[in-house]
């Protein structure tokens, strides 16, 4: 857990920016994201659909298509990884950094067994023989608590239930003991009971393996459940960051406040549910100033001009809003 600044961060991201430039459009999907993450820590990136969460993760993994312009700096265990050559990147992926996806069907090849898919990852990274890799795969399935793991090893993805596939996908991601696990909405497709099981499993695995997790979701409840820190993303920017407690209890940014009051969760019990008016901005034509201004009920003229100042509290929380300070006092 985040207990100080003694250790160097396992993952540090500075000014990560992604633009998709094709013929006549220029989509600013991620606009200067900064964060750092200690071993064993979980950061949740919380945001609406289209806010650039998945693109940020893919940029970290180097998985974006060639036409995506990625800039900024990313350090993994102290080593710069952005813009590494393909072979070096492939070594990292599934090794030191790995990813789990929203839809396990999207992560698993339908014509290979679960065992084969886990084993080949181990073989690729560690160069061991297939037999050893299969044994490791069996151990992993047991670790993610798949019942009768021996038999499941020989199952094809379509022969498993949704929750089981999820566990298999997590086992795959953990195959080479990553130091950073990127989880892209890993529970949104599941029903609530399974969702909670998977979240608990992730926390338990994290405690066992000590990896850092970047957890992406638009589900405030899941964010509250799993994270140490939360970053709220809007139009490709972090508009507010802080510990889970800070963000949930004392949200500073009007967007965060809107997001929380549009969801049922513990921190806001007793308040009426309301939705945020309007819809997310078009990333191809971001307005100058605060991207949230068209939907913000506190917007003033200053919001529509120039860069929005970042407000930092003495407890380390951050908000990117002209009126953050006065709104919190109010």
């Amino acid at each position, binding site marked *: 857990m985040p207990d100080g600044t003694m250790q160097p961060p396992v993952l540090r991201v500075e000014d990560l920016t992604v633009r998709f430039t094709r013929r006549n459009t220029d989509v600013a999907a991620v606009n200067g994201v900064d964060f750092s993450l200690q071993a064993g820590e979980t950061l949740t990136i919380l945001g609406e659909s289209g806010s650039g969460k998945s693109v940020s993760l893919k940029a970290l*993994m180097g*998985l974006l298509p060639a036409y995506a312009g990625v800039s900024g700096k990313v350090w993994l265990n102290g080593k710069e990884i952005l813009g590494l050559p393909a*072979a070096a990147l*492939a*070594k*990292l*992926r*599934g*090794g030191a950094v*790995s*990813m789990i*996806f929203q*839809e396990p*069907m*999207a*992560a*698993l*090849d*339908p*014509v*290979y067994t679960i065992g084969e898919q886990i084993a*080949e*990852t181990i073989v*690729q*990274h560690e160069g061991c023989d297939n037999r050893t890799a299969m044994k490791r795969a069996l151990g992993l399935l047991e670790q993610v608590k798949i019942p009768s793991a021996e038999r499941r090893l020989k199952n*094809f993805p*379509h*022969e498993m239930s949704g929750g089981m596939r999820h566990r298999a996908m997590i086992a*795959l*991601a953990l*195959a*080479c003991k990553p130091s950073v696990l990127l989880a892209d909405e890993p529970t949104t497709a599941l029903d609530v009971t399974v969702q909670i099981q998977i979240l608990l499993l992730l926390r338990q695995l994290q405690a066992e393996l000590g990896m850092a997790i970047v957890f992406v979701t638009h589900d405030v409840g899941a964010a509250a459940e799993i994270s140490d820190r939360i970053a709220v993303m809007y139009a490709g920017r972090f508009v507010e960051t802080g510990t889970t407690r800070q963000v949930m209890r004392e949200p500073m940014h009007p967007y965060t406040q809107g997001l929380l009051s549009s969801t049922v969760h513990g921190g806001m019990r007793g308040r009426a549910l309301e939705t945020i008016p309007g819809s997310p901005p078009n990333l191809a034509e971001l307005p100058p100033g605060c991207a949230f201004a068209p939907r913000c009920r506190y917007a003033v003229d200053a919001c529509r001009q120039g860069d929005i100042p970042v407000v930092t509290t003495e407890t380390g929380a951050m908000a990117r809003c002209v009126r953050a300070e006065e709104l919190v006092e109010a």
Partner: protein
Amino acid sequence: MLLFALRRLLQAIPILLGVSLVVFGLVHIVPGNPIDMLMPPEASPEVIAQMKAAFGFDKPLYMQFLLWLLRAVQGDFGLSVFNATPVWGQLLAALENTFVLAILGAALGFSMGILCGMVSALYHGRWPDKLFSAIATVGVSLPHYWCAIVLVLVCAVLHDWLPAQGMGDDTLPLYERLQYLVLPVITLSLIPMGVIGRLVRATVLDILGQDFVGALSAKGLTRWPVIRHIAKNAAPPVLALMGLQFGYLLGGSILVETVFNWPGSGNLLNLAIFRRDIPVLQATILVLATFFVLLNLLVDIAQAAIDPRIRR
């Protein structure tokens, strides 16, 4: 899996029976019956009746069919009406010649098609893709006989590189006999190459668009293992088409075998039609159709072995 294979095998039986029924029916497409057609007009009714009895034409139709089928299964298709030699021997020789062409043509066409389709999908929209698309379109749209004639003109008439016709003498050394194969094999491979190439390209592009391919890179697989995954996913539809194409090649392209004067089953079929040689016609069609059915069976089983979702 074994059960699946067995079930498919059983399902093939009624199909084969249907095929043999149609083939048997061929005799009766010709008006009258074969004996009436073959006997000189001045033959006496007694002789005709005798002949009919000898060939079994006096029995009821279903008995004729059963007897015919029983003998056909044992490889006895009777004598050729044209030259009174056993049909089976002629057919065997022709099939062997066609097999040589078909296997080489398929090997060349399929491997080129898979290579081109794979490369153009992986380089989608760039020059290798455009180049191959052009080649494939030309390959499937040029008429076979035209290609054959151009090849013969260029390689055999204008230059003396390769023999134009026939399959060479048994006495020639192997290397010279191989030369006779080159032009017909190239001609035959054009259509399979184009058709398979286009299907491989489309299938691989479709697979590349699926999310799990991104996930393969996300777990750190390098280029070749990723290509292996793509290939296995693309295999079932491609196999189905290869089975079909190989079936066509086995049928022996009548045009190619005629242009190159290649004594294969296409040629035999062609001759049998012109000579109204019904027994030869029947035997050739029945054997080829059986190959076709068996080939499809094999493809079905191979598909199910590759993609577990096909097994039911």
